[in-house]
């Protein structure tokens, strides 16, 4: 067995990624967020099998049943029913796919496009960078809701269009975050050193810049997921979102507002679902931020 002559202990230094992961695991709140997130992911996949009833199915003789722990409630309609007799639990579970699942997909696509464009604009200099920056500023200034409204107005009200609209609203945010991160990295001296070593643009980007901006990007990604969930739910609430038969948490909330006095559970449960999913994502994001900061401190 090879033995070193050094009398110092061997120091196993974990890679930064592993360090961040170990740090992340030690925050119970962040882990809670992670578990809830995974829970939602699983529901996204198994919702059609887990829901007791099809979401649009109306039960004419079970209108406005309160949740099962209420004295008038029934276990078969676990969280109660709405004014058309639709089971709330099934609607919530299917809504996971619509609100949560589609926001994940949207964020992933927006991240790819936004990060790619952001890198292009970040690595460019002078006039080109200036122009891209101005375009970015202009797009960022438009409130995301308005952008989504216009796009839905142009192309009609379907779930796919809503997803595209929210995605397009997210792209500038990714661009802005990536652009700032890349620009910041370019001022560092190790980039100058790499350039003096003879690296071309792509090599500088891949080997020097990318590993260092990865952390900022991951944090931005979690932030964007929470924004996407809230945007899709808001559009649903304003009834500009996914059209009627699709169960969506925001739409459920909007439907429940009329009944808020006689059947408040129509408003509470969808709201709690949105709150829980956004909170979980934010907890993960916060845990990551802390882990990243302390990983290098």
């Amino acid at each position, binding site marked *: 067995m090879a033995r070193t002559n050094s009398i110092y202990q061997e120091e196993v230094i974990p890679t930064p990624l592993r360090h961040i992961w170990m740090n992340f695991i030690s925050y119970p709140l962040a882990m809670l967020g992670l578990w809830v997130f995974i829970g939602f992911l699983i529901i996204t996949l198994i919702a059609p099998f887990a829901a007791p009833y099809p979401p649009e199915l109306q039960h004419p003789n079970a209108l406005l049943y309160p949740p099962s722990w209420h004295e008038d409630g029934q276990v078969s309609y676990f969280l109660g029913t709405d004014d058309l007799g639709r089971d709330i639990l099934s609607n919530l579970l299917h809504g996971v796919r619509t609100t949560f699942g589609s926001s994940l997909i949207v964020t992933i696509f927006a991240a790819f496009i936004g990060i790619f464009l952001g890198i292009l604009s970040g690595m460019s200099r002078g006039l080109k960078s200036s122009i891209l920056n*101005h375009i970015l500023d*202009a797009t960022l200034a*438009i*409130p995301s809701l*308005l952008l989504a409204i216009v796009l839905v107005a*142009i192309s009609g009200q379907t779930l796919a269009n809503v997803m595209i609209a929210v995605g397009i609203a997210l792209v500038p945010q990714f661009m802005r975050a990536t652009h700032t991160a890349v620009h910041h990295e370019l001022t560092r001296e190790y980039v100058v050193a790499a350039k003096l070593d003879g690296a071309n643009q792509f090599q500088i980007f891949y080997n020097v810049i990318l590993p260092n901006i990865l952390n900022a990007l991951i944090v931005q990604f979690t932030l964007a997921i*929470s924004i996407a969930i809230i945007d899709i739910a808001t559009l649903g*609430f304003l009834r500009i979102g996914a059209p009627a038969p699709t169960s969506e948490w925001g739409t459920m909330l909007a439907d429940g507002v009329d009944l808020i006095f006689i059947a408040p559970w129509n*408003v509470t449960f969808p709201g709690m679902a949105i709150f829980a999913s956004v909170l979980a994502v934010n907890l993960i994001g916060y845990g990551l931020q802390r882990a990243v900061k302390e990983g290098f401190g």
Partner: protein
Amino acid sequence: MWFYIARRVNLFVFTVAVLYFLVFLMVNALPGELATNLSGIQNPDIAQYDEIVAQYQLDKSWFNQYISFIKQRIHGDFGVSFGNGQSIFNDMLTLLPATIELCVYAMIIALIFGLPLGILAAIHYKKFGDFFLLGTSLIGYSIPVFWLGVIAIMYFGLDLQWLPVAGRLNLLYQVDPVTGFTLIDIYLSNIEYKQLAYKDAFAHLIMPTLTLAVIPATVVIRITRTTMLEELNANYIKASQARGLHPITIIFHHALPNAMQPVLAQISLQLSTLLTSAMVTEVIFSWPGIGQWLIQATYQQDYPIISAGILVCAGFVILVTVVSDVLLIATTPQRRSAVYGSN
């Protein structure tokens, strides 16, 4: 410094030009007749059609169309709405102050609550106070604004009957809309019962403003905490401690002003998110502002209003960003020299 301001103004002009271009593209993509969407006149007769073509140069190249689009809008001609045929510009003048009022008050409340709490969190770093504040701000950040508004209405408005749930002012009070900002208008008007009018306006303001202020407040708390932590670990703070300065002096005279700059910079970035939340809040509380107007227009597919709304909202955001940028540069010497030194 004037050089920098000139650059900023140049930036403003250019960004607005890009904005107009984007909206121009959008208007061209909307379904229906281009002439109708631009001017708002449905089914125009020959004379009107010719006039529209002349105004917007629809017979020439797209570049001319773009330029004349800008010209028309700058002169205040936003067309008329599909719904009621009224001039959009006049409608906007009455509605915009309402939204601005809501946003400004919400931002002020967010700062008033957020700044001290952020400083507290930084001072109690890694102790209970810090965790508690962070937890609260995380929770506040995760509550969807419409849920919060609906629950507030249900509880305070309907259940306890403490606060009114809709509108800006009880119709009993006939206040002339001079500036559009209710509190100022009450002050300027000469009705009797001014005290009661103030109370009423205030009661109408509380719920929407507080609902809207939650998310910016949490953002302010987080950012203030981060920047204060950075400042409190800086060298010059240690040096002031070594000179024996009182901790309160150190925090408020040295750490806080330096920490404020990133906070203010972040706030202007939050503006478009704030507008989105404001629009939803207006719908819930039936607040007569731009947001509610725009949403109604969306239900009725009133395209001129939608495009005008985007121009106004985004233009407002850009204006505020540029103004706050200039103010920031004017008041912080370090940034100024950094600007001159580098590009």
